[in-house]
């Protein structure tokens, strides 16, 4: 293993370690633009130059492997001067339009300028004109003047999606990023190029000019778009989600997330069921709970346990499902449980899974397997056979794309004696949303489930509560509350607690932590998601805690 001296400190590193990586292990954060830990290394930006003794040329630390006995200086006068110069060279043709740039506030160029340059400008020459608004594809817009030509976006499309849409065109300071003729930047991950663009050259159509980044707060969360459970930064401002950005987790999503998943943030704000309803009337929680208690009490008296059923939603957190289990068990006293959730959809080899529900494995975990949960189709059959009279359903999703089955279900719901819907959405818009996450309005000839419900209870999204999803690989991933429940909604675990308490059972918890302890704490080991414990802490502090520190993105 080679030993290298960096700024007079010696360190032994693995063979093949680069100078930048070795420096990171000693705590030196060498500035860089083109280097990205997940991509190949072109060493073109020259921001990371360091001085290597006995070498007349400065060397790109991102590219240079450590040799035994090498002596490196990352903070010498020559290096500091070179950094200043690279920043100055970048600014020669840069428009410095930070006031109107979406990247301002999270821009590497701004940050490094403040850290390493911040000198009086020596530029008097005219700048090269570039394209200012150039759509590369449906989601991403390019600004050639802000581009520093680090080629991160090009390499992403070559190496991660392997779709090869992008290239550099022209040469010298006229170089710009372009798609190949006849192509668009239109892959499932195109917006990741916006994330990795170190400057404001690539912007997402969806986020352009929407919100200054310093106004937003950020919460660690998990995407609900599919069962992969990509870790995200949920950026929000004034109780509104502004965007999702992927959060590094080497076990789940690396640095990436898919475009359709990224757009699912819109579900937090669109088509929401805002208030409790009894029949057609908007009521408050007190009135809704009273109505629930009286109608359900009567129904429990009238119908056998086998005539009562519950539809579980894999959209809901483990905490909500834990309470659903207890509610079905202790209050409804039924074991007729059915699988709800969104129907399957598109998948690919990278991250996107066909199961569009984030927590199917959570149901498996909470209910100790899926044997106890029957298919949606069998629910419809049982309803049509008149076997089920009382149904408590979580979420308005109907887990099928088969129109006939949907229609049969809606018809059967109309025949129920008691139908309670506990849902985030009104169902007046259609799932799935279009590519931009906007929901087309539904063809409202048919009544919605909310309209059919005797009682409808608004539940909160994952952005409004703490919770846990278990992804397709069985990794339990906590997510945090970004803002208080919107409208008059409540988290599912609280709704069940409240209803259960009012029905004369002791179901509620004062604190979520108590529920979690009960749920995770005394579970049988083999029933547990296999990586539950270790991943829980890991996904909160994902910065590769298990291995050596690596250079930042």
């Amino acid at each position, binding site marked *: 293993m080679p030993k290298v001296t960096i700024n007079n400190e010696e360190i032994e590193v693995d063979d093949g370690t680069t100078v930048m990586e070795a420096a990171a292990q000693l705590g030196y954060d060498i500035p860089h633009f083109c280097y990205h830990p997940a991509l190949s290394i072109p060493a*073109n930006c*020259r921001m990371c130059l360091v001085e290597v003794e006995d070498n007349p040329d400065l060397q790109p630390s991102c590219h240079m492997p450590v040799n035994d006995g090498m002596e490196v200086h990352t903070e010498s006068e020559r290096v500091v001067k070179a950094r200043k110069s690279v920043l100055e060279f*970048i600014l020669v*043709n840069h428009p410095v339009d930070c006031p109107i740039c979406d990247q301002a506030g999270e821009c590497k160029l701004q940050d490094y300028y403040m850290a390493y340059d911040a000198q009086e400008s020596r530029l008097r020459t*005219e700048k*090269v004109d570039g394209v200012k608004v150039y759509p590369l594809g449906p989601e991403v817009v390019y600004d050639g003047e802000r581009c520093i030509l680090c080629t991160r976006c090009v390499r992403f499309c070559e190496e991660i999606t392997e779709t090869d849409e992008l290239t550099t065109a022209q040469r*010298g300071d006229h170089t710009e990023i372009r798609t190949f003729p006849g192509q668009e930047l239109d892959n499932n991950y195109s917006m990741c190029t916006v994330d990795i663009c170190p400057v404001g050259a690539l912007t997402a159509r969806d986020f352009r000019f929407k919100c200054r980044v310093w106004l937003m707060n950020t919460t660690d969360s998990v995407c609900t778009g599919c069962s992969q459970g990509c870790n995200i930064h949920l950026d929000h401002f004034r109780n509104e989600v502004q965007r999702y950005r992927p959060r590094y987790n080497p076990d789940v999503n690396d640095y990436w997330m898919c475009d359709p998943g990224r757009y699912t943030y819109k579900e937090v704000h669109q088509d929401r069921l805002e208030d409790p309803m009894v029949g057609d009337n908007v009521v408050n929680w007190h009135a809704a709970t009273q109505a629930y208690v009286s109608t359900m009490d009567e129904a429990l008296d009238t119908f056998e346990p086998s005539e009562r059923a519950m539809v579980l939603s894999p959209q809901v957190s483990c905490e909500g499902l834990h309470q659903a289990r207890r509610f079905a068990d202790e209050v409804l006293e039924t074991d007729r449980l059915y699988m709800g959730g969104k129907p399957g959809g598109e998948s690919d080899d990278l991250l996107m899974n066909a199961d569009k529900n984030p927590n199917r494995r959570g149901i498996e975990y909470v209910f100790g397997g899926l044997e106890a949960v029957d298919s949606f189709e069998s629910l419809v059959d049982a309803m049509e056979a008149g076997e089920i009279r009382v149904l408590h359903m979580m979420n308005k999703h109907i887990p099928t794309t088969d129109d006939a089955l949907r229609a049969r279900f809606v018809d059967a719901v109309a025949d129920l004696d008691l139908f309670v819907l506990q849902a985030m959405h009104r169902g007046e818009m259609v799932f799935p949303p279009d590519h931009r996450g906007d929901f087309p309005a539904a063809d409202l000839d048919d009544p919605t489930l909310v309209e059919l419900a005797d009682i409808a209870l608004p539940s909160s999204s994952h952005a409004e509560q703490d919770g846990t999803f278990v992804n397709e690989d069985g990794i339990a991933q906590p997510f945090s509350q970004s803002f208080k429940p919107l409208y008059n909604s409540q988290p599912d675990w609280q709704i069940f607690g409240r209803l259960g308490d009012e029905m004369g059972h002791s179901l509620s918890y004062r604190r979520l932590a108590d529920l979690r302890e009960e749920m995770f704490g005394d579970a049988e080991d083999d029933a547990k998601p296999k990586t539950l414990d270790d991943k829980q802490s890991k996904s909160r502090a994902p910065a590769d805690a298990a291995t050596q520190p690596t250079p930042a993105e």
Partner: protein
Amino acid sequence: MDEKILSKFFDRDDGHKLEVYEDHGGYDAARKAAEMSREEIVNEVKASNLRGRGGAGFPAGVKWSFIPQETEEDKYLVVNADEGEPGTFKDRQIMQRDPHQLIEGCIITAMALDLRYCYIYIRGELKFTEDIIQDAIEECYDKGYLGEDIFGTDQDLDIYTHISAGAYICGEETGMIEGLEGKPGKPRIKPPFPAIVGVFDAPTLVNNVESIACVPPVINRGAEWFANLGVEKNGGPKLYGLSGPIKNPGVYEAPSGITVRELLESPEYGGGMKEGKELKAYIPGGSSCAVLTPDELDREMSFEAMREVGSNLGTGCVTFVDQDTCMVRLAARLAHFYHHESCGQCTPCRDGTGWSAKVLDAIEAGRGRHEDLDLLEDMTGQIEHSTICALGPSLTFVVHSYLDKFPEEFEAHIEQGECPFPSWSLDDTKPAAAE
């Protein structure tokens, strides 16, 4: 030089024909090499003191010895015929008038290093030479000089010509390799050097046209003879292209290490400055070399002698500059060249070349300020040690040497607010005969 080695057919119209070449002992060297071991050939080239003629002057034999011999994969020879250095026009003479000397050089080189394929990478503007070279290649195939088991050895060799899409940067060896692979000419980071990872990731020898054309005489007449034609560490005859307002511009063959004065003044070569023209400066080997003043006229044309004074022998094509030429304008012109030709990968070269061109333009136009001189010096100094290839640093040599050698011209522009030299028009470039 009495005996012409590299240029013996330059004033004949039929020198490109195999028949003529063979009448003058052509392909004898290849036959001789076929009897030699690989090692013997390499050692001969090493001992000949042949230096790369593409600009960097790397000892050819040493570079050859970097090509790994124990590999199974096919290895490549790439002949750099992209001659694009401003002021340089020597390789094209070989390509046009003596292609067989080049091909014979390729054959011997391939025998020496077991190179299976050879590409001759021809500058787009020199496309007319492709037909000539291609015809010569066909003649060789017909004779069995190319193809399988050439000259009775077990060496196979196929030669292809490749026309560059046209960019100065494709003359840089790794930019050229990218170009050969069908990609934009963006130089690669070295190491690994082409000798290890070259075209199609295989070991690749890259040599300049003239370097390869020197190989047959080395083998034919021996390393010692070749080395003795030159000076210490710079062996053999050399092609010099002379340009500028001199009496006899053109390409001349002369020994390595000849003095610049002899090249300029001897009636055999440049014949002196034109009537009424006085020498103010010269650029020894293409625009990327630092400019020198007449007090360095007695310098030897060797890599060592030129490096002593901070310049370079480069391609050995000398540009002479007369007293009426504005050095600021010349520097600006060259800066525009490097700006135009920068591939745009490295930040310092991409943005620094254009910036210096614009600052030099401003000075030339009388809009300069004294601070601009420090700015130029400082800013171009930051390009030198911080780029992937040598194109960016070339601009540093240009700007620094012009600032250093002709500060008074820069000051005069700034102080007078205009260029003190006569204005320049296209008419000045017309040959004298047209007047």
